């Protein structure tokens, strides 16, 4: 065993114990800064764009769609995931920093939708842990806003963010 590794692990342990009293704060802070990465694979992307447009303005809930994967902490899967795209999805998910959440949007992302018996489909729930599902084909923009609110409520009540940050 190397000394540097042991020291690093013990420092992390001490930091985690020190941070424990602040876990409600971590949840509260993450709740109002859900930044989903752009992962538009099909038509649900239009509804996603509409829900962040001027009429519904989901940005007022503290959620901002962002382009750089390493600066985001949520991923809204907008549509069909093929076997080739599933690999990209996995890479994108693994690049995001620790408290991270996955939302499956639309019938295709939930159960395959109209492509349920295709040879080239992957259900996102088989490869990623999904917090919120948005049903519809495609869902209304209001449903996306509602999903962001649902995710916020789940974060507050189930302590999702602090669990991932301190234990994961």
């Amino acid at each position, binding site marked *: 065993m190397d000394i540097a590794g042991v020291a690093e692990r013990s420092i992390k342990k001490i930091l985690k114990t020190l941070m424990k009293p602040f876990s409600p704060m971590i949840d509260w802070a993450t709740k109002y800064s859900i930044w989903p990465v752009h992962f538009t694979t099909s038509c649900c992307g239009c509804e996603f764009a509409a829900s962040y447009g001027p009429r519904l303005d989901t940005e007022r809930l503290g959620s901002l769609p962002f382009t750089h994967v390493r600066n985001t902490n949520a991923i809204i899967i907008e549509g069909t995931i093929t*076997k*080739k795209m599933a*690999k990209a999805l996995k890479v994108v998910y693994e690049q995001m920093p620790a408290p991270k959440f996955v939302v499956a949007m639309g019938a295709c992302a939930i159960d*395959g939708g109209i492509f*349920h*018996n*295709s*040879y*080239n*489909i992957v259900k996102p729930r088989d490869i990623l842990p999904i917090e919120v599902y948005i049903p519809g084909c495609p869902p209304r923009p209001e449903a996306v806003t509602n999903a962001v609110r649902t995710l916020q409520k789940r974060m507050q009540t189930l302590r999702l963010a602090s669990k991932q940050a301190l234990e994961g």
Partner: protein
Amino acid sequence: MSGDSQVKAELFIENPAELPSVAQTLKEKGYDHVISLSAVDYPKSNEIHLVVHVSSYTKKDIEPKIFEIRVKLNRDNPRVPSLVKIWPSAEFQEREAYEMFGIVFENHPDLRNILLDPEEFSGVHPLRKDYIVQVEDIMLKLKEEVKSGGNK
């Protein structure tokens, strides 16, 4: 003839080795591009039919015509000479026929998968009739279950 886009000529080739000479003759007559290149699988008679549609941009009198070439191939080892040297627009469509049906195009410059993941679909051809989709129709299964439950 002009304005009538329904005009269609057809040619059925039994021996795949004859395809390049037929294609060369057609090109000299003015058919200068491939509209579509696909295949049909007939598992009962153990054959695959390669279907090529060609037409013309340059010659106005044959522009509304679509010429269809059908080539009979052996289903166990489908091999056919490539058309890329005669019609360059066939390149990507031959690659698609290669991954979907397993047809090997001899002397193709770059014969590999175009749409499907090469790791997931190596040696598997999803548009052949004997390909088994892992998640088949949910509705049919439910119907069968209800039927067997009623009989019991």
